[in-house]
């Protein structure tokens, strides 16, 4: 691997005389890249407008929202309110839904990563019969549209409701039933299953790109597969795993369909479901909808900005070597 040498010595030697020349060079470079910068910034601005509109509207007075466009917010009357947020959080149950969303999303993300990483390790580095055929099946599952599976899964869950019925309907930690419809465990399992094919595919390719010598070296050092997995593969694959975590987190967080089908109970509804209900009951109360929508966006935005370095790295890492 090439090592970058600091070039401070060279820069110090350059001195004051060529400073003007360097300035000219910098300006020249800026001029050449100006069209690029303008178009990138322009695109970013266009893409951000809806979000900005949402944010601005959510802080406006209900009366103003329906009478004037959001861009008028900077003009007179210059007034903003937290009232919309108070309303949706307290009276419309968005606070509870936020917690529900977390309860659904965090385990669904962690389960996918744990299971997929172990499966991907086996597919990439362990020898067992039908390995490639099985991997092909897993990749093939990527093609199956999620919607196709909803009815069979729902039927299965309804049957499970019967089988687990004797346990009653209020398991304290699981928020209702042990498994089946209207249970957290049920929706975790569904999200995990739907997320696995892509996760296994992505991680297998990443693991497969790790140098073979590392594994062999570790085997000779006396490591079992489990040790190699935890001590070598996981630490080295953090970029790919972080990227996958972000993807999966966003999918589950933004999911409406699966929650709608498998989790009808408003007490356990995630934010997506609550917002949908808001739309149907307050179709014109834009100030409430925008506030609710922004609450649901807040966490993904935070996650994205915190981990964006991994996000970009991980996408590349998965794609380069297979």
């Amino acid at each position, binding site marked *: 691997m090439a090592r970058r040498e600091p070039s401070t010595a060279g820069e110090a030697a350059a001195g004051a005389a060529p400073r003007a020349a360097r300035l000219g060079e910098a300006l020249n470079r800026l001029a050449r890249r100006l069209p690029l910068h303008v178009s990138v910034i322009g695109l970013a601005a266009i893409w951000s407008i809806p979000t900005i509109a949402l944010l601005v509207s959510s802080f406006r007075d209900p009366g103003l929202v329906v009478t004037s466009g959001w861009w008028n917010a900077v003009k007179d009357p210059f007034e903003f309110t937290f009232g919309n947020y108070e309303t949706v959080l307290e009276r419309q149950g968005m606070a509870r839904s936020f917690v529900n969303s977390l309860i659904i999303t965090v385990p669904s993300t962690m389960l996918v990563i744990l299971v997929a990483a172990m499966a991907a390790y086996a597919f990439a580095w362990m020898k067992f019969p039908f390995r490639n055929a099985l991997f092909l099946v897993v990749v093939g599952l990527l093609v199956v549209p999620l919607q196709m599976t909803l009815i069979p899964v729902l039927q299965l869950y309804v049957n499970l409701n019967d089988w687990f019925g004797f346990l009653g309907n209020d398991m304290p930690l699981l928020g209702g039933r042990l498994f089946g419809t209207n249970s957290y465990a049920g929706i975790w399992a569904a999200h995990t299953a739907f997320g696995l094919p892509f996760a296994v595919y992505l991680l297998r390719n990443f693991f497969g790109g790790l140098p073979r*010598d590392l594994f062999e*070296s570790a085997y*000779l050092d006396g*490591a*079992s597969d489990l040790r190699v997995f935890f*001590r070598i593969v996981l630490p080295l694959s953090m970029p790919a795993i972080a990227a996958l975590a972000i993807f999966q987190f966003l999918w589950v967080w933004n999911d409406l369909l699966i929650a709608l089908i498998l989790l009808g109970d408003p007490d356990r509804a995630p934010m997506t479901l609550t917002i949908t209900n808001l739309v149907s009951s307050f179709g014109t109360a834009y100030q409430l909808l925008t506030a609710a929508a922004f609450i649901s966006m807040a966490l993904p935005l935070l996650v994205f900005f915190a981990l964006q370095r991994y996000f970009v790295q991980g996408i590349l890492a998965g794609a380069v070597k297979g």
Partner: protein
Amino acid sequence: MATVTFERVTKRFSQDSPLAVTDFSLEIPDKEFLVLVGPSGSGKSTVLRLLAGLEEITEGKIFIGERLVNNIAAKDRDIAMVFQSYAPYPHMSVYDNLAFGLSLRNVAKEEIRGRVEDAAQILGIKELLKRKPRALSGGQRQRVALGRAIVRDPAVFLLDEPLSNLDAKLRVQTRAEISKLHQRLGTTFMYVTHDQVEAMTMATRIAVLDRGLLQQVGTPQELYERPRNIFVAGFIGSPAMNFFDASVNGSGGGMELETKQFTVPFPDKRKKELAPYIGKTVVLGIRPENIHDREFQPGGLRAGYVKATVDVTEMMGNEAILYLLVDDKQFLARVDPRTRARPGQPLELALDLDAMHAFDGETQLAIGG
């Protein structure tokens, strides 16, 4: 401390692929430094990996000491291996790299510390223990790889082309250090390389492989002086041996070897071996160092003389390498640096008849020898 024995080991990677290693038998005594040498694709790395347990044996047996290891997992064979890429764990410090194998074997913390520090001392990497591999140079990484093997105190030490990623100067230096390490540890070493110079300089014995077949095993000197066949003769020694197709002429007392380019009498002591080949073709081999500039030939040399045209001269200071042409046949000579050979000029050369090799043209095996 262990003897390693290969008994008729064969390796086939898949049903319809050719054999990677064929009928390989070899006994490596305890504390020997055995070098496996051969061109790429000769199966030398495969032999090493079979011993390490990284590949499964198709047929045959491998023993380490008295123990049959065919079905023993790599980690239980008491073997340490240095990889060509060094394969340091990138996310661990040098200390943790060295300690990894020991901690997996539940060695006590204090003992690990002691052994890691000893190994670091031997290799001169004590001040690097806290660094990560990416902050190390190639030579330092190579030491870390060696250190990882040393701390384990294995019965057999395997090295797979450990020097090929180093620059020329460092390679020469590390070569000597590995030899020293072998003497110091007193462990059986098995070392794979494609570089015959490495093989010659480090080995107790060399095993030459070609296309999965063991060609010859012997000390460097034996291989150099008495190569068993044309392949070994051409592979060992640098620059490589020159070969000429020759026919054996003569009867009674006056036998001679006639090539297209020249005719030389041949020494009395070889006459008996070559007698059956009269009228047949053989391959004559002579090393560049056994061809002298006639002007500076050593005294007492029994020589055959050849006139050739000098094509290229390489002056090395202590010697001169001449690229010579007779008709269209090129051959090399390693002559006294005082030579007056100039490109394009003719030169008379003396071939040391006693140092000539002869090979059967069909079987490629050495005649007599």
